[in-house]
């Protein structure tokens, strides 16, 4: 039997609109509900991590004033903060949240291709979060091994949570990876199989390209973390020696022998570096769409943007050991990994140029999503450029292990993606809820977050150059080069951090308040071209498109097309006398 595309078999399926509350909102198979479930859980656990960072900062800024936390707590908090932010907040929110919401809507599909598995994905994710949280309450508390969980210390005495806590963490990660695999297979298959008629690859919005590539990265990278979680669990529980050589711990010679701590680091970063791009690529994609929509201009260099995403995705698998230049691995690897790492800067730089060139000669509307998008360009340029220091093996050596690293990765994969998250939530909020958010609160939120985070991280770079080591609970006066001015900087950073954390309450308030009291948004308040804004209902109903699937006639960036009556042409608008014929990626045939 000949293959028939899903979009051409739409009539074969009847839509079963779930009727009961539970099937509609709890055990839901609707990608939009699952997206919101993912987002709510991710933001909730993210708030826990935010509070932990505030406690850490109070300790660092005012070590003699607040006796809130002990060293054990401090290391437990840095561990949980890092892991939650990277995996349980950003990865889950970009892919489980935005991926779920946007892929079917942007591609003109009725849902994910495997709705039941999509539902399971969320429930496994929730389970992973619960197991993670359970780790806070087991004897000894959660693991304090740092989010990198390096053995041997992750499973040896002297590290908080080395017995129960680490097992909870590893189990939670394993469950998360199961959840992600179900979700990720779904996202990839949906993009490959369920695009509506006319939606060629080169007409897909860059958001979908970013999420699609990130999902593939995740499917290839997470298994490395999965196996290392299993192996470390065995080392800890059964006494195997995958990662443990012979050691003398606390004066006792343990029975392990022959294992390699570096093997874990290779596995971890083989996952860990692509993980950076699992977070970054969706952010790249989404911010491209925000910039284009609100600058009322086509994204500049669409094809180059797509190729850049794909190039970054491929290269991200051959740069991992730049996290390990001075880990004790063979130093000759440094030549290879420094070269690949700096090469990856080229497609990344192209993306930055094209974002700026999208604004150039645009008609820039400084809406709240646009402010976040512009803020992102600034923070990403900053964080990206400091990556050139740390990626270039020699330059990395003096800076490695210092606050320069902390500043770099927070700018590039903390602040930058989170600005995109905020911008994206403000951008799609009208579609998700049918109401507008409060713009004034949105602007206050932007300014406080954007300027506040820079106040946190700018000085950290320079503390790092001085040599102030990261992951220190306290800086005693016995370190000769740590001058009183360093303590002043720490106070300043901590005050800024508390401020930025507090400001997030405005964001949460805005989300909730506007849900009930916001102005009705209409179907397409931003006058955007992509398909999710062209749904017959807002918020879109089950099945998204009513009776007939949309048909796409052009790319997603027809803004201000010469000769067109409006400043945007929706992707599904058929060509007729009044508007130019559909374009693929805007290139004249």
């Amino acid at each position, binding site marked *: 039997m000949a293959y028939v595309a899903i979009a051409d078999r739409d009539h074969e399926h009847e839509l079963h609109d779930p009727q009961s509350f539970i099937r509609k909102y709890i055990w839901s198979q609707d990608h939009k509900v699952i997206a919101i479930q993912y987002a709510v859980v991710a933001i909730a656990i993210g708030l826990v991590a935010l509070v932990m960072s505030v406690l850490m900062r109070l300790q660092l800024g005012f070590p003699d004033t607040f006796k809130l936390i002990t060293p054990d707590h401090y290391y437990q908090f840095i561990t949980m903060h890092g892991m939650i932010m990277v995996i349980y907040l950003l990865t889950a929110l970009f892919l489980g949240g935005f991926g779920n919401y946007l892929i079917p809507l942007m591609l003109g599909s009725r849902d994910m291709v495997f709705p039941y598995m999509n539902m399971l994905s969320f429930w496994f994710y929730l389970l992973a979060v619960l197991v993670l949280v359970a780790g806070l309450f087991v004897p000894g508390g959660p693991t304090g091994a*740092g989010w990198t969980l390096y053995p041997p210390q992750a499973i040896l005495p002297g590290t908080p949570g080395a017995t129960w806590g680490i097992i909870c963490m590893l189990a939670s990660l394993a469950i998360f990876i199961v959840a992600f695999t179900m979700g990720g297979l779904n996202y990839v298959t949906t993009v490959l199989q369920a695009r509506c008629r006319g939606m060629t690859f080169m007409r897909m919005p860059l958001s979908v390209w970013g999420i699609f590539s990130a999902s593939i990265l995740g499917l290839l990278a997470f298994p490395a973390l999965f196996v290392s979680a299993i192996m470390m669990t065995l080392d800890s529980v059964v006494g195997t020696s995958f990662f443990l050589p012979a050691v003398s711990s606390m004066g006792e010679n343990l029975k392990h022998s022959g294992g390699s701590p570096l093997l874990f680091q290779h596995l971890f970063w083989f996952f860990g570096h692509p993980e950076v791009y699992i977070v970054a690529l969706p952010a790249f994609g989404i911010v491209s769409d925000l910039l284009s929509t609100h600058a009322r201009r086509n994204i500049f260099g669409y094809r180059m943007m797509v190729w850049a995403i794909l190039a970054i995705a491929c290269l991200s698998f051959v740069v991992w050991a730049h996290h390990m230049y001075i880990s004790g691995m063979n130093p000759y690897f440094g*030549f290879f990994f420094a070269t690949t790492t700096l090469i990856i800067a080229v497609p990344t730089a192209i993306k930055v140029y094209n974002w700026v060139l999208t604004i150039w000669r645009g008609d820039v509307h400084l809406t709240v999503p646009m402010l976040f998008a512009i803020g992102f360009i*600034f923070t990403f340029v900053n964080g990206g450029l400091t990556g050139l220091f740390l990626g270039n093996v*020699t330059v990395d050596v003096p800076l490695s292990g210092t606050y320069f690293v902390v500043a770099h990765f927070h700018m590039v994969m903390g602040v930058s993606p989170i600005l995109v998250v905020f911008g994206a939530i403000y951008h799609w909020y009208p579609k998700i809820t049918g109401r507008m958010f409060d713009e004034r609160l949105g602007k206050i939120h932007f300014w406080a977050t954007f300027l506040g985070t820079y106040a946190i991280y700018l000085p950290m770079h320079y503390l790092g150059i001085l040599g102030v080591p990261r992951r220190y609970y306290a800086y005693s006066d016995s370190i000769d080069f740590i001058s009183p001015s360093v303590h002043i900087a720490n106070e300043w950073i901590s005050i800024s951090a508390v401020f930025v954390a507090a400001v997030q309450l405005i964001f949460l308030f805005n989300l909730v308040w506007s849900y009930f009291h916001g102005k009705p948004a209409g179907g397409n308040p931003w006058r955007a071209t992509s398909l999710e804004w062209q749904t017959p209902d807002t918020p879109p109903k089950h099945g998204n498109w009513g009776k007939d699937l949309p048909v796409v006639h052009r790319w997603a960036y027809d803004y201000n097309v010469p000769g067109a009556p409006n*400043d945007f042409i929706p992707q599904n608008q058929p060509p007729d006398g009044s508007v130019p014929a559909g374009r693929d990626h805007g290139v004249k045939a």
Partner: protein
Amino acid sequence: MAIAIALILLVIGTVLFHFLSPWWFTPIASNWQMMDDTVHVTFWVTGIVFVAVNLFLAYAVIRYRHRAGGEKAHYEPENKKLEWWLTIVTSVGIAAMLAPGLSVWAKFVTVPDEAAEVEVLGQQWNWSYRLPGKDEALGKTDIRFVSIDNPFGMDPGDQAGQDDVLVASPELHLPLDKPVKMLLRSKDVNHQFAVPQFRVKMDVVPGMVTYFWLTPTRTGSFDALCEQLCGMAHFAMRGRVVVDEQKDYDTWLAAQPTFSKTQAELTGNAETGKTLFATCTTCHGAQAEGNRELNAPKLSGQGKWYLAQQLRDFRNGVRGTHENDIYGKQMAPFAAMLADDTAIRDVVEYIASLEEARPPASVLGDPERGKTLYATCANCHGTQGQGIWATNAPRLANMSDWYMQRQMQNFREGIRGKHPQDFRGAQMASMAKVLADEKAISDVLDYVHTL
């Protein structure tokens, strides 16, 4: 519009901060000036890009912001020529940073033949060092051999190791202007040996020997930090590298024991020790049970290694010299009466032979709260307060609580742990700050009674 102005101000502010901030590299003390140079090159290249891209962005926002009745956006899907130019210029900039980086790295991976070897041994949470003896070769080691009597894990059967010089202190000396290859070994978990003034550093990984090399270029004393998270006391794991003129270095080196010497001096003679201990009994009591009225703590049951260490510290002026350490100053002259390390070993051996009695409890608090707080202490002192030689942590259980209370106060007030050679004391001083106040100390000590 505000965002464009903000971007311009942020760029100006960042550049000003860069030039005005008080934080920059510590003055370099090794041959790796070229490492700083690559950082400078990178700062210039990335700094120019940072300023150019952000100012252009700000200008674009100002120039093309939406105005009622203003220009429409320009429809221009791509501009191949511009995109290629940008790609090429970027690639050239990248290459300009990568090339010097890799050429310096080539020097990093090439250890000069004449470099002397020094082994750094990391463990939770202190450093020690080993140097080759006259045979210029380090002996074999194995974790299997690690014990309280052989903390370096030396292979006793290996002749090459007999003359190895063991530095059981976190302070290492290096001769000026001599290249040195640092061999790094860990007993337990990952560490990193980092002296910021040297620039170069490397992780210390159990199960393997890692290395880096440098040539110290100025004399001085430099803090060595651990920069790879190694557990609860990571932040308090401190060493020191002193760069000496050759003459001073030779003096220091001559004072360090060889492996065979340490092995010959393991145990003392309790009989001789008994005679020596007679003086001590006046205050510490015949059974070394302690006497609170005379401010003399209980000694019996305490680890021999700890007693010996403290006696040496008293004798060498490392302890009992702070002007406010009233009782420590009383002890110092008595410790000085022990003529040498042999005498110390003997007396300690005798103390170890004494029957132990449980001291009366005198510090009261809330043991439940103390139990929670003790979780931090247990990392080094052991869950039963039994003391752990490997972490230099003395026994707490069944020792004089009033004495421990006073020592905690001394640590917190900087009366103890301030001497530059008192690395262990400094470490405890860092940890003592974890207990917020007097009450927290009492709570912990009352919990220790239950152990």
